[in-house]
């Protein structure tokens, strides 16, 4: 266990720890461009140079192992001069198009220039090396070769994380640039991470391009509901519009975030977002829609079937269970879903595309209910006159519904989700608009925080269920989402 001193503070670290990691443990920040904790060490940007006593030259902190008795300085004049000079080199050919660059505001060059350089440029604008700008590479990214500082984080990401190796440093020395290998497109399902890890504005997201400046964005920590992995994410939003989702790196689940997950926010702002009820194909105000659904349920009563959904939160599933047990008082309700879970591609994407299969099990354990196969059998046998469920869950019993011609009433957030031949649809607030609890494939509890407000009049599903029961003359007494959780044991 080597013991060393950094800026006068001594620390004992594991063997093999780099100076940069040791400094981080001490709370000493060393600037870096090419270093990324989840990628291999490259040591090419030279930004993390530190002075080590008895070493003839400055050393790169990211690639130097800590050794016994090292005395390291990160604040000496030599280090300061080195940082300033490295920045000057990096900025020689930088186009300085910050006004049109999406990275401005979270750019490594801007930040470090303000922190470590502040030197005026000694080079003429006219002498800068010109390169290709705004080249679309793949469906999600734009590459600006002029802004690139050749830190190779993107190259290492593609070869080490996705193992697809689309990117490479082409040519040599002053001519080098990041390029796509011939015949390849940057579309590996994780490509938007490159826009995140790029410390400058060389790779920017095509989706986020020119939508907003980053300093306007407010950040809400929430959870990705794209699959059962349940990655922790941060929603960046402003004035009730979500602009992008970025990962919140954590040791349990994720460092990265897949492209599919990053674009899940789109449905909230899509043109087909429901703010009214739908009866057959016609839009109808919420109140009459609720009344219509309530009277259809009243007609059928004990031959109503209620199916939970692994796409809904535990609270909303529990509210549906309460509606079945205490409101409609039917025996045919089901909170039993079994899908194979586990990471499909070795990175993040789960075999189970629903985010809450494990959570629904907890609801089933507390409230009972029948198996999904039994429900399908009852529907096919014609014992069920009306099925109430969530739009995507209705797909699981599609065959049975089709053969029996049972009346289907669904909850849906978007019109595109509604299955064909649905009798009525009620809108509900999605989990970007209301909090909800989920359990991911590891059994970890995940709670969403809403960054935006639901369209006017649209309530969370548990509140819609509560109202539905009230219209039929039963009270579930659900005042809040927590009321629905009563009796459910969460780890």
């Amino acid at each position: 266990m080597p013991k060393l001193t950094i800026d006068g503070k001594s620390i004992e670290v594991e063997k093999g720890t780099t100076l940069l990691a040791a400094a981080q443990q001490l709370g000493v920040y060393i600037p870096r461009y090419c270093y990324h904790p989840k990628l291999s060490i490259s040591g090419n940007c030279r930004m993390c140079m530190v002075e080590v006593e008895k070493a003839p030259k400055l050393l790169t902190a990211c690639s130097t192992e800590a050794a016994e008795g090292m005395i390291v300085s990160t604040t000496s004049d030599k280090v300061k001069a080195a940082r300033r000079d490295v920045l000057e080199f990096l900025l020689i050919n930088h186009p300085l198009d910050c006004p049109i660059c999406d990275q401005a505001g979270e750019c490594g060059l801007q930040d470090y220039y303000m922190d470590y350089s502040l030197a005026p440029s000694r080079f003429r604008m006219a002498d800068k090396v010109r390169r290709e700008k705004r080249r679309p590479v793949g469906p999600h990214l734009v590459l600006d070769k002029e802004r690139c500082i050749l830190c190779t984080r993107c190259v290492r990401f593609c070869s080490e994380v996705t193992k697809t190796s689309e990117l490479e440093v082409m040519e040599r020395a002053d001519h080098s640039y990041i390029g796509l290998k011939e015949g390849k497109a940057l579309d590996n399902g994780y490509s938007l991470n490159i826009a995140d890890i790029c410390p400058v504005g060389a790779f920017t997201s095509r989706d986020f391009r020119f939508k907003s400046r980053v300093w306007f964005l407010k950040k809400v920590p929430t959870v990705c509901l794209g699959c059962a992995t349940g990655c922790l994410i941060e929603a960046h939003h402003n004035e009730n519009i979500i602009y992008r989702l970025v990962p919140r790196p954590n040791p349990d689940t994720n460092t990265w975030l897949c492209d599919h997950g990053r674009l899940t926010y789109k449905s909230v702002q899509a043109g087909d977002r429901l703010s009214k009820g739908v009866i057959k194909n016609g839009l109808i105000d919420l109140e009459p829609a609720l009344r219509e659904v309530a009277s259809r349920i009243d007609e059928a009563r004990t031959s109503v079937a209620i199916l939970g959904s692994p796409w809904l939160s535990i609270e909303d599933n529990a509210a549906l269970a309460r509606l079945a047990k205490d409101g409609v008082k039917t025996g045919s309700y089901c909170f039993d879903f079994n899908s194979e879970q586990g990471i499909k591609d070795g990175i993040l994407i789960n075999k189970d595309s629903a985010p809450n299969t494990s959570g629904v099990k907890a609801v089933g354990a507390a409230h009972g209910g029948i198996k999904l196969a039994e429900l399908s059998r009852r529907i096919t046998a014609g014992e069920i006159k009306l099925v109430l469920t969530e739009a995507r869950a209705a797909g699981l019993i599609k065959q049975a519904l089709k053969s029996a011609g049972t009346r289907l009433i669904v909850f849906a957030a978007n019109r595109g989700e509604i299955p064909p031949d649905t009798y009525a649809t009620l809108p509900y607030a999605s989990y970007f608009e209301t909090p909800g609890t989920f359990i991911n494939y590891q059994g970890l509890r995940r709670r969403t925080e809403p960054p935006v407000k639901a369209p006017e009049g649209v309530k969370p599903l548990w509140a819609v269920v509560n109202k539905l029961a009230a219209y039929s003359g039963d009270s579930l007494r659900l005042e809040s989402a927590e009321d629905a959780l009563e009796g459910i044991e969460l780890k």
Partner: protein
Amino acid sequence: MISVKKVNNKPLNLLERIYLREIARGIAVTTRHFFTNLLNPKGMPTIRYPEQTRPLPGNANLRTRHRLKMRSDGSPKCVACFMCQTACPAYCIHIEAAEYTENTVEKYPAVFDIDLSRCVMCGMCVEACPEDAIAMDTREIPGGALTREEMIMTKESLLRNLPDGSAHAQSGNARSGYDLTTPSEEEPSRKGAANRLANEYLKSRGEE
């Protein structure tokens, strides 16, 4: 130093406290002005603003209605960097950015609105602009309007030419007191890359 002025608040005397005489005096003053203006309307000090305006003193350094400067091809110099919107203390600027597909300058404002009913004419937007694309040198003082909508200036109205027809950057600058004519080869522009790109674009069109 704070200057102190002593105010002599004399108590009112009896005649003043009855008010009747003072009211009569006040009415007399009003009536005198009424008849003076009725018989000699040209001597009235007030004008019918905003239909009528007063000529501004020629050498005054004023912040007047905004305008967006244009490149010589008529496109706005603005690159929608949102600096003015960020700097604006009154939240009166609304920009929506869009992308040129062919021009070398990538970004331009598809929407650029200034809500003059909120604007406090502080000039922060002009200070903040890295492209020198917004100016307050039209020497027009924004007038009143009957609806809020009329007080919102759109991109089209902001790109309107100056009254004397000098729409382009060069002529506008002479007035505002500093010179931003084309940078010479020895002294490259420090106004940011988009400006450089614009210059190059213009050069490629042989217009510079």
